[in-house]
């Protein structure tokens, strides 16, 4: 009741203020208040030496990476929307926003909604300069959406759908509705040793190590930078 009255009062004062401004001709002042919403967050990464210790990149590589990073994100951090925009530039035919969202979750290790340069470069270091096991661990972390240590069929289905979404509509052969689901079934048949419906980290790493194709594809990342 008092809540209702308080709200009424607030609306009335707003209307009265509006009329007052209408009569005195100062209506446009409303917009100034909105400006305080803008956050001028600017994040600076730690020193170059510290980053060199934390990652396996050389100084020059870190410099090149930072220059590219800063060009696109002058404020020093990437938020999810910018992340999605950047990633979508590489996949013009399909919709890469869901996969970009999962990636963002994977890079944002401290879960604060933004990816700083350190997070970015640490993630890249694992993928591009880490051991095969590190890479597999990182991939598992990407698939495990709720970070509970095991991948369920639903999580895998989400991931699979997001990957298939990136292909877009114009594919050959035509994209079937249940293609992701079938793919998930195949994946689980391969990975799920004990058939309990979930894939744990050990099952995952073990199965991947047994698969030649996967091992070979992991080597691709050695020469990206």
């Amino acid at each position, binding site marked *: 009741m008092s809540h209702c009255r308080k709200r009424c009062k607030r609306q009335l004062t707003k209307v009265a203020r509006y009329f007052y401004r209408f009569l005195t001709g100062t209506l446009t002042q409303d917009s100034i208040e909105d400006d305080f919403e803008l956050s001028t967050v600017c994040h600076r990464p730690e020193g170059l030496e510290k980053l060199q210790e934390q990652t396996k990149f050389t100084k020059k590589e870190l410099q*090149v990476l930072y220059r590219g990073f800063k*060009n696109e994100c002058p404020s020093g951090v990437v938020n999810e929307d910018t992340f999605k925009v950047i990633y979508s530039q*590489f996949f013009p035919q399909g919709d890469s926003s869901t996969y970009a969202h999962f990636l963002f979750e994977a890079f944002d290790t401290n879960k604060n909604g933004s990816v700083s340069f350190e997070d970015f470069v640490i993630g*890249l270091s694992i*993928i*591009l300069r880490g051991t095969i096991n590190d890479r597999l661990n990182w991939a598992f972390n*990407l698939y495990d959406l709720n970070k509970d240590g095991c991948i369920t069929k639903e999580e895998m289905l989400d991931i699979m759908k997001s990957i298939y979404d990136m292909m877009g509509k114009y594919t050959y052969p035509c994209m079937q509705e249940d293609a992701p689901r079938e793919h998930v079934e*195949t994946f689980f048949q391969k990975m799920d040793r004990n058939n309990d419906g979930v894939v744990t980290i050990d099952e995952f790493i073990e199965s991947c190590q047994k698969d030649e194709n996967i091992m070979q*594809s992991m080597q691709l990342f050695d020469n*990206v930078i």
Partner: protein
Amino acid sequence: MAAGVAAWLPFARAAAIGWMPVASAPMPPPPRDKRHTRDELIILNVSGSRFQTWRNTLERYPDTLLGSTERDFFYHEETNEYFFDRDPDIFRHILNFYRTGKLHYPRHECISAYDEELAFFGIIPEIIGDCCYEEYKDRRRENAERIQDDEDNENGNDVTQLDLTIRQSMWRAFENPHTSTMALVFYYVTGFFIAVSVMANVVETVPCGTGSRAKEMSCGERYALAFFCLDTACVMIFTVEYLLRLIAAPSRYKFVKSVMSIIDVVAIMPYYIGLVMTDNEDVSGAFVTLRVFRVFRIFKFSRHSAGLRILGYTLKSCASELGFLLFSLTMAIIIFATVMFYAEKGSNSSKFTSIPAAFWYTIVTMTTLGYGDMVPKTIVGKVFGSICSLSGVLVIALPVPVIVSNFSRIYHQSQRAEKRRAQKKTRLARIRAAKSGGANAYLQYKRNGLLADAEEEASKEAGKALVCKVNPTFETQHHHLLHCLEKTTNHEFVDEQTYETSCMEVSMVKPSTSRSSSVSSSPHGLTSCCSRRNKRKSFNVPNSNMTAGRRGSVQELSTIQIRERPLSNSRSSLNAKFEETVPLNSEQQPYITAAIISMPTPPVTTPEGGDSASSPDFLQSNIVRVSAL
């Protein structure tokens, strides 16, 4: 893809790790990085301003000058940088394009200069960012209009008098009265008669005192015959003018469709219709209506007044604003008339008998006229009446600035066109002077001859020697080139007057020397002869040392005839010939004998007295020799 995002490609490739474990087929082999060039700084020196950037930045756009191997052409070995002799201020924007992927247009720069720089660096202007695109397109359009205007004006005035037929010259006289006095007279006469006709129409209706019928008569009824004669005269002039224009028009159909011709027809038709129709009572009403159209004669003044034309053009171009004004006024009128009618319905003896009747009140009030023939009596009516008048001011005031700004723009455009036309004369004169300056320089050079000899410094007058020495390398090479062209075609460059006089003289000279020699190019010799002679005459002006008229025409012709005779190239005979006619230096002979195959070496200039006479002579004799062989 935006340039900056290319830097994130490694990240995108790394993110592909998420696909690997779920892939159903093996991955393709990775591309081999053929060049692992370390990124290096490139120095771009643009007219002294040094710009530096990474090589990768430039190579983001490989189809521009800086991004491709084309920049190697500008590499300066000594300083290890790329040097461009261009505008550094505009280059700043071009380099920013590489850095940010967005091309901006600086507002204070000239559009042509900017376009040239873009074309030089191989950047297409269509990628200008949205922030600057509109401004860029506007400026470009204005520039194109200006160039088009200039071209039109030039083309319009390039037609020479000789080429026009009677019909075309008549049409030109009608369109531009300033071209001839006849046209000007015609122009003023028609203007006068338009004024007279309009005045007569006006005065016709003024009451002129009582006539025989003891009632107030208008002047038109009292002096009917006089006015009729005046009207007849005016209409005859207008008819003749219209027919003449119709005959002279290059496209009759287009002329008949044009606005001015319709005005002309409407102006003279009532008279003829009145002539044809009898004094029938039935049609006299229609006849009176037709007389109203006589007032359209006043629009014929628009041919005489540029301001009137601008006004008409403005109204045409503001048609949408005027339409909006009309529409909004109509809406407001209907609304307020309805309101006023219902407000005043209650009061008795109200003038607001119907909504259409209320329209009159609304219009008069909204335009703040306020005749007062209809006023609201109830309080509600008065309240709404005041709101009506306030809103009327607003509605009318809104589209007016748009119309005014349109008029101002068109007016300034016409002012600019006028100014350009006035300046065109000086501009053309300047261009012509520059062109003839170049030509004259060459002719002067030929007269003075070339030299690099110390001897002339002593023998020549200071003035001439100075002229030779001052010529930079470019000039001397250019003159040499022109000289070669002369030799190739066996003709010589002359200036305008000598050309014209020689044209007239060739016709005189030809019959006297009808030689049927083997010299097929004798006409060449003759024309060159005449031109030589006349050139000599014209050379009198710049070179005051020359004695005028050294050679009579007959003697000159005879010298040519003599020279054509000897088929032997012996120096002695040449010497003899030359000595007999022209006092030449012995130094000139090598020039003559060697002339046929090789390019002529610059002849040494002769002593001042014989200079201008001799050099044209032996140039001319040179020509003769070539043609004889």
